[in-house]
């Protein structure tokens, strides 16, 4: 007897979202099936990888990833150009870490100037991230959204405590918005609803259900993403049909497994390969569970994930 493929046809679909403008614009989402289930539906776009660029020198990054950007990380413009021109980045995530009160406390005006200069130097889509300081981010991201008008950027991250101001700024200047909640599908759904109640277009939201590194809670992120996708597809839940971002590099490149040398922990093996594989595996697990956008740091990890996606598409 022949095998009958148990195809599952879903009622829902992930919104197709375009970031950036012109030839280098990138579209993600649009699928009506679980990740890479092209055998039973449509997967029109591949997940995109953005390279993480900071507005300050990455002093707390481990050597193995910091040394890659050694010649350019003193200047976010050089750094972003290097990612695009040499590493072939399809998108940049500019993280305004230097605006954090504990980390230099740069002003919103200074940050906006950095955003402007980076935008002038690159033609790929830009994700503009604050320092994850709830109050400071409102000032910083409002100014950043203003100077980035016309470039269809992604602004983030809006959280429960500050979403109103940030969403209003993204809306006023025609940007996309990252809505971040803490590892809970209900919180994520609730935040999306609150943002759309402000009049924000639900098809311009990117969900960040909070990332975690392999071995440091990855199973929680994995399962929350999987459940968000299942709600979007099988229940046709319009509040969960936005593309998902995995902010991978930030969570991976601070754990012990990517910085402890083989001399200290011989049973963990070669450090360089371990760090790259750690970031690549974390990212791969997230694209398998639902992420359409990844923010990464090590170019070799990004290349490995790209090769992985090639084999899946």
């Amino acid at each position, binding site marked *: 007897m*022949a095998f009958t493929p148990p195809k599952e046809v879903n009622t829902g679909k992930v919104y197709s979202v375009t970031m950036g403008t012109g030839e280098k614009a990138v579209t993600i989402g649009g699928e009506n099936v679980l990740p890479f289930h092209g055998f039973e539906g449509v997967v029109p776009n591949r997940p995109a990888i953005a390279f993480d660029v900071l507005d300050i020198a990455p002093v707390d990054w481990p050597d193995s990833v910091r040394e890659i950007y050694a010649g350019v990380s003193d200047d976010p413009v050089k750094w972003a150009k290097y990612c695009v021109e040499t590493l072939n980045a399809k998108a940049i995530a500019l993280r305004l870490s230097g605006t954090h009160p504990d980390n230099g406390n740069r002003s919103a005006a200074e940050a906006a100037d950095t955003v402007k200069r980076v935008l002038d130097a690159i033609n790929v889509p830009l994700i503009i991230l604050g320092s994850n300081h709830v109050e400071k981010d409102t000032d910083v991201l409002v100014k950043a959204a203003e100077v980035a008008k016309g470039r269809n950027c992604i602004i983030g991250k809006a959280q429960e405590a500050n979403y109103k101001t940030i969403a209003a700024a993204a809306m006023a200047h025609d940007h996309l918005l990252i809505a971040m909640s803490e590892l809970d599908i209900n919180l994520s759904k609730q935040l999306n609803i609150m943002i759309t109640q402000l009049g924000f277009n639900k098809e311009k939201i990117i969900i960040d259900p909070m990332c975690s590194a392999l071995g440091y809670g990855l199973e929680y992120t994995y399962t929350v993403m999987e459940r968000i996708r299942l709600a979007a597809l099988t229940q046709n839940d319009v509040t969960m049909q936005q593309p998902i971002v995995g902010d991978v590099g930030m969570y991976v490149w*601070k754990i*012990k497994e990517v910085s402890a040398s083989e001399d200290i922990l011989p049973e963990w*093996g070669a450090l360089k390969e371990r760090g790259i594989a750690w970031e690549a595996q974390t990212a791969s697990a997230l694209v398998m569970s639902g992420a359409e956008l990844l923010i990464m740091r090590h170019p070799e990890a990004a290349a490995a994930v790209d090769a*992985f996606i090639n*084999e899946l598409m």
Partner: protein
Amino acid sequence: MALTGVEIFKMLPKTNCKKCGFPTCLAFAMQLAQRKVSLDACPDVSEDAKKTLGDASAPPIRPITIGAGARAATVGEETVLFRHEKKFVHPSILAVAIKDTDGDDVVVGKINECLASEIDRVGQKLKIDALCLINESNDAGKFDALAKTAAAKAPDVAVILSTENVDAAKAAIANFAGKKPLLYGATEANAEAMAALAKASGASLGIKAAGLDALQALADKVKGLGIEDIILDSGAKTAKEMIEHNTYIRRAVLKKGNKSLGYPVINMAIRDNNTLETLIAGLGIMKYAAVVVLSSAQKWKNLVMFTLRQNIYTDPQVPMQVEQKVYELGNPKAESPLIVTTNFSLTYFIVAGEIENSKVPTWLAIMDCEGLSVLTAWAAGKFTASKIAAFIKDSGIEGKIANKELIIPGYVAILSGALEEKLEGWKITVGPREANALPSYLKSRSA
């Protein structure tokens, strides 16, 4: 397919005799439906019902054990497609491939990689589970020689014999009598001979076909030849084929009652690029491969695969826990700070990681709160002033530190007064609420 409680109830004696330990037959039926009790508990069930219920209660994916003794590994018995529904049951077997054309140093090197692969993570021992011997030469003598080396150097390790050559299989399998190897290489062409050999040797049988139609036909055929323990290879080569075939097989068996393919699946992850190979192995671990074959098992790669496997196969309803004790981070001295928190593994990992980032040597007292995080443990009455005080006193830390000062998580600042009463002579300090504030907190304290 699994029966519902009511369907099962109809087949029971309906006497409510209570001999099974449940008040009514219906209650017993409900427990049977959830596979929480065995039908044997009912003394009066008819033979007919036994047969029907027995078939229905058998796990839809048959459990298969490869190897014997302490290093035997079991796969199969999975019941869901997504881990939030229920715990994934048996972690994928990771097997490292050795070809009979490899040089002696490569063979010995890989066997040693496998033997030395065990590491401990969150109290679990993780390792490469099996050797996959590949008859690359298609020569019986060479395959037998490799089998002899493996059997001598790694006598306890589970073995997969990969060959479609019946003579080679016959020669090699003789080295693993009583050790339940997986004979991996039955095809449409050699099924009869391979099935006879597997039966005679007590081996499970891996069957290979191109595509799911052919696989189903071959599975039915070897089952007809009397083989019960089967492992499936659908011929999936690329990641795209792996996810399609593995998903279709798991779904057909669990949701559509397909009995022909109710067996574990084997995938080849071998790639030229070792990082990509790691990710392909990860795909297998996440998406329903019971056995994943690798080209090598370097320590860095093992750590990544083991950690992913552990993450995916944890019970989503039971938090992971670490051992209760005072951990020494960065060689703390008598004047180093002492921090207390709960033994939820994530809490431990994140707090320990941030302390290590701070480069400030610290005593980290991890208290058993049944794996709950700080706020949950506090709310559940497991992280209270008297319990913390008792733990600190019993831990013996008092004799190792100069200043009796205990730093507690900011979320339980409310405990500081009560703790000062219970821990006489101690100073209680309220630390940050979130672990990510620990580096600046510790640095400013030590400045």
